[in-house]
Each structure stands twice: as structure tokens, then as C-alpha cells.
């Protein structure tokens, strides 16, 4: 039986599990910086209630932040859903259930990737209706 965990010795022999093992580590290193800076900006530098439509409009005038958020979205989603895939692999023993849940993991990944990507690409601020700086 295939034993796959994201945590433990490196799977040998190439193939998807080896790729997955390296992907966890490479995306993980990048996510440490991307996620902690994101957390600092939106919870410490400005309060979370100030992440208003107005602030996003100003921030997204600069394509850098769209790219930053898209990279964070993509890497975090793939890293997290790949983790969920391994959790399903670890605990779901029945063939049918395993196939069903793994398919669900794949579909959820695709749907949320598209939802996030479309949101980031199509956002154009509504002019003159920006609203308050901070929301109580």
C-alpha cells in the first residue's frame, strides 16, 4: 500500500509523491514570508476592521499587491489542499470513499482557485462609492 505523508522521510523513486514532498517544502518556505507579512499588514499595521473597500481600492491600484495576493492564494490553497489530500489518504480506508473525497478535494481546489483568481483580476473599484476608511 502506498504510504504518503507530508511529514517524514522523503519518498524515493520520483513520481507524484516525491513532487508533492518537495512542493510542500518549497511552497512552505515562500508561504512563511507571504503569509506572515500579510498577517502583519492586515492585523497589526492596520486593524482588520480597516481592510475596507477603500483600502483595497488604494492597494490594488498597484499591480504588485494583486500579484502578491494571487501568489499567496495559489500557494496557500495548493499547500493546504495537498495537506488535506494526505489527511484523507491517512484516515479514509474504503476505496469508494477515498475516491469520492479525493475528487471532492480536487474540485474544491479548482473552484476556490478560480473564485479567488477571478476576484483578484476583475476587481475595479466603484468610483464615488468607496465608503469609510474603517468599519467599526
Amino acid at each position: 500500500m502506498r504510504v504518503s505523508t507530508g511529514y517524514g522521510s522523503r519518498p524515493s523513486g520520483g513520481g507524484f509523491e516525491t513532487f508533492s514532498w518537495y512542493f510542500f517544502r518549497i511552497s512552505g518556505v515562500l508561504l512563511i514570508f507571504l503569509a506572515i507579512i500579510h498577517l502583519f499588514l492586515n492585523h497589526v499595521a492596520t486593524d482588520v476592521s480597516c481592510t475596507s473597500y477603500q483600502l483595497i481600492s488604494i492597494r490594488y491600484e498597484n499591480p504588485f499587491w494583486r500579484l502578491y495576493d494571487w501568489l499567496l492564494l495559489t500557494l496557500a490553497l495548493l499547500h493546504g489542499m495537498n495537506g488535506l489530500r494526505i489527511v484523507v489518504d491517512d484516515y479514509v480506508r474504503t476505496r469508494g470513499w477515498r475516491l469520492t473525497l479525493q475528487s471532492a478535494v480536487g474540485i474544491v481546489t479548482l473552484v476556490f482557485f478560480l473564485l479567488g483568481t477571478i476576484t483578484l483580476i476583475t476587481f475595479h473599484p466603484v468610483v464615488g462609492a468607496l465608503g469609510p476608511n474603517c468599519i467599526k
Partner: protein
Amino acid sequence: MYKGQSGMWSWLLHRITGLGILLFLLIHIVDISLLGFGPTVYNEGIALFGLTIVRILSLALIGGLLYHSFNGVRIMLIDFWPRGTRYQGAMFAVVMILTIVCFLPMAYFVIAPAFGINPGNVASGM
């Protein structure tokens, strides 16, 4: 195999924090998608994050993310540093200390507005 030792707890915590962060990520993708419905709808959604109960949940997210990050570095050191395995227990202690040390100041900024204290960052919505 390593039942009850630090190896088991670090592994379990890594898995639980990972799943928790993933759950938040999925919610967060949905709340950000509200941007497409205009300022009123989006702002109503984001205002929920200012509620005390959601601020408390944010604390769990921050603690979980910090632990998952630092323990991720520990895992990579075990993988790639020849002496990593020998020091995994000590590194787990370092992970816990770093998590707490980074968590406390961040937690103050997140929770202070719930007590009516302005922590001095850019307008705490007060």
C-alpha cells in the same frame, strides 16, 4: 512508534493547525469575493472581523499560523540538516518559545480594540 513524545505532539499540532488554517483560507476566499458585489456588501462582510468573537478566532489563526511556520522550518531542518534528527526535541522547544514570543505582541494589536483600547496602529476602527 513515538507515541506520547514531543514528536507525536508536534506532528499532531502541525496537522490540526494546518487544517484550521485551510478552513480559514476557504472562508477568506469567499469573504474577499464579496469585493465583486460592491463596497456595501464587502464592507458588511469585513465588519464581521471586527467583532470580539471573530477577533478571538483570529488569535487562534495567528497562533496556528506562527506554530505551523516555525514547525515547518523544524521539519525541513530534520529533513536536510544531518544532525536535525538529534536536535528535534530541542528544536520543538524553540518552536514553542518562538510561537509564544511572536504571538503575544501580535495578539495585543488584535484583541486590544475589543477592550476599547487603541493599540496605536492605523485607526483601529474606533
